[in-house]
């Protein structure tokens, strides 16, 4: 039966704290105070694609870093991969590819460490229902100072890798069309090797925290904001997880293949984006299944679910342990994102070790090129999920079309589903309780959304909660932060 939105009460939560950028959650209630609609909104417009149009293609890998201060490297590399094809240089030299991979794993390492220690660990260490004045990074610093320090030092280590491979944070120029503009000096390599074993040890400890939390609380979190879904990610030709390059694979909730390792240059044949009038963020879906059944999740959970194996030993052992919890079927528990994120943290540092000991990083053959093209797609697995960059370039080397589908947009429907499930479970009456807010925030944070990236905006606002009656009269309002 269709619901008349005009007769619903509305609770607005704006924005969600401790996620990147800002967004708001609107809960629409019926006259019986039951949830009828749950929506995660973003409030800014999209404009970045227009900013790119008319610019020479070789500037794009630098310009796209302006999209987001949290994941500039992912945009840098996705754009560079597209521009590789524009110059016919997609088959990189060993030094070119390995330098980019080192940069990428450094980005994963710092991003996952930041999210785990400074955004989600308060929820895991203190519990969702604990005092919000304690349940934050300052609380962690007070009661678990060694963990707070680890988080900072791991983030710093990842940033040092990025600095050594990409250059300056604001004007990173490491990846250029067809390759890379520098190799890794012996001095840079030795500096990074110095702290490597410490980082590996801390990664194992981080994984233990996430795993133990999930296993010990499985009965509580199994239904928390959880739902069956499809999962999409890049995988290597042999089915291994590959965060830098591969084919697009999709599986359904039971693990059946619904997107069969396709070449992502043809992604528009398989994926479409639905526009909804209440959101600036689009809703991607698999065309064959349609918008109702074809939406999917991306990110660490999807990647672990979709791949056949991981090609580093400790992360592969961790993957097997994770998959055993669901008898090797896809895991559809939202809070399991945290465990999978730490498996990827470990995989990243294992890959970093592998690369730092590879002499190809000191090679001098940095750039390649071939037959010029006018259209290209660059795909990469960003820390938050699959990131699409699609460009058309004219014969004067100017970009004439740009389309980006960022990771958080790919998780749009999934995050809305999580919010809906949590609100259904925790809303009581028409009061906006602290518990309800906390649980919604915890659910959204599991996806590590980057709303500034999704909306191409930067900014920060306080948390505002508003309750309206069915005639849109304001009944209650709370501000947080």
């Amino acid at each position, binding site marked *: 039966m269709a619901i008349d939105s005009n007769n619903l009460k509305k609770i607005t939560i704006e924005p969600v*704290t*401790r*996620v*990147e*950028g800002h967004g708001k959650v609107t809960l629409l209630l019926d006259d019986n105070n039951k949830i009828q609609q749950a929506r995660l909104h973003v409030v800014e417009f999209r*404009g*970045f694609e*227009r*900013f790119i149009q008319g610019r020479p293609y070789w500037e794009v890998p630098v*310009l796209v870093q*302006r999209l*987001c*201060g*949290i994941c*500039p490297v992912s945009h840098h590399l996705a754009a560079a991969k597209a521009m590789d094809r524009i110059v016919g240089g997609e088959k990189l030299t060993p030094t070119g590819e390995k330098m980019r991979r080192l940069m990428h794993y450094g980005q994963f390492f*710092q991003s996952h460490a*930041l*999210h785990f220690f*400074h*955004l989600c660990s308060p929820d895991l260490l203190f519990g969702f229902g604990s005092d*919000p*004045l304690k349940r*934050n*990074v*300052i609380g962690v*610093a*007070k009661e678990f*100072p060694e963990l*707070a*320090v680890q*988080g*900072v*030092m791991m*983030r*710093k280590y990842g*940033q040092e890798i990025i600095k050594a491979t990409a250059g*300056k*944070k*604001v004007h990173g120029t490491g990846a250029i069309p067809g390759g890379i503009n520098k190799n890794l000096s012996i001095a840079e390599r030795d500096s990074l090797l110095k702290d490597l074993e410490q980082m590996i040890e801390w990664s194992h400890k981080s994984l233990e925290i996430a795993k133990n939390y999930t296993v010990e609380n499985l009965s509580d979190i199994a239904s928390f904001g959880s739902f069956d879904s499809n999962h999409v990610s890049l995988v290597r030709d042999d089915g291994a997880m590959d965060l830098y390059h591969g084919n697009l694979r999709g599986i359904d909730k039971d693990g059946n293949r619904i997107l069969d390792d396709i070449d992502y240059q043809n992604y528009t044949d398989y994926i479409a984006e639905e526009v909804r009038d209440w959101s600036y963020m689009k809703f991607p879906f698999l065309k064959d299944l349609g918008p109702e059944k074809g939406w999917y999740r991306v990110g660490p959970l999807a990647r672990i679910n979709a791949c056949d194996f991981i090609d580093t030993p400790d992360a592969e052992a961790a993957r097997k342990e994770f998959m055993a919890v669901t008898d090797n079927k896809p895991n559809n528990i939202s809070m399991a994102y945290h465990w999978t994120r730490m498996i990827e943290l470990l995989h990243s540092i294992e890959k970093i070790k592998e690369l730092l000991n590879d002499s190809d990083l000191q090679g001098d053959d940095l750039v390649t090129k071939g037959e010029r093209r006018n259209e290209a797609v660059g795909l990469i697995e960003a820390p938050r999920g699959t990131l699409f960059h699609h460009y058309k370039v004219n014969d004067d080397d100017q970009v004439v079309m740009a389309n980006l589908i960022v990771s958080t947009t790919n998780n749009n429907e999934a995050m809305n589903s999580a919010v809906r499930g949590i609100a259904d479970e925790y809303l009581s009456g028409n009061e906006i309780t602290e518990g309800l807010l906390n649980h919604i925030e915890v659910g959204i944070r599991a996806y590590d959304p980057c709303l*500034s990236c999704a909306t*191409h*905006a*930067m900014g*920060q606002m306080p948390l505002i909660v508003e309750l309206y009656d069915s005639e849109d009269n304001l009944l209650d309002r709370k501000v*947080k*932060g």
Partner: protein
Amino acid sequence: MTTFDSHGILVIGFGNPAREDDGIGPAVAEEIEKLAIDGIEVDADYQLTVEDAAAVAEHDAVVFVDASIEGDEPYTFTPLAPKREETFSSHSVSPEGVMGLARDLFDSDANGYMLGIRGYSFEMFTEKMTGQAHENMIKAIDFLVPMLRAGSLEKVCQ
């Protein structure tokens, strides 16, 4: 507790160059870096994040440089007190929050200062500063550089 041997002055300029005058911080960092002043380390980023706390702890003093939306023209220079931020996004840790983390996590007693340079327009995706903001930036650099060369930020704050 993890601690660092602190030395010298750190200048951190932050902001997004694609938002007009929001790019003042990184632009100042770029200009200071060109001068290669002994004992001065320079960094630039889109926003401050938690690992900046470790960088602060490695120095005796830090100058945060940012665009100011409502501050006095052409700039303000004020000391900062470390602060415990009870809720914040990693997207944007405040300078005081970074100082607070440096103190709490690394036992840092670095002195912090905020150089807020007045900007006027912050539209998205325009990679050019307004003329007035640029003039303000030049004045702010002229103010800051002599102190950096002297290795002391003790000048009367304004």
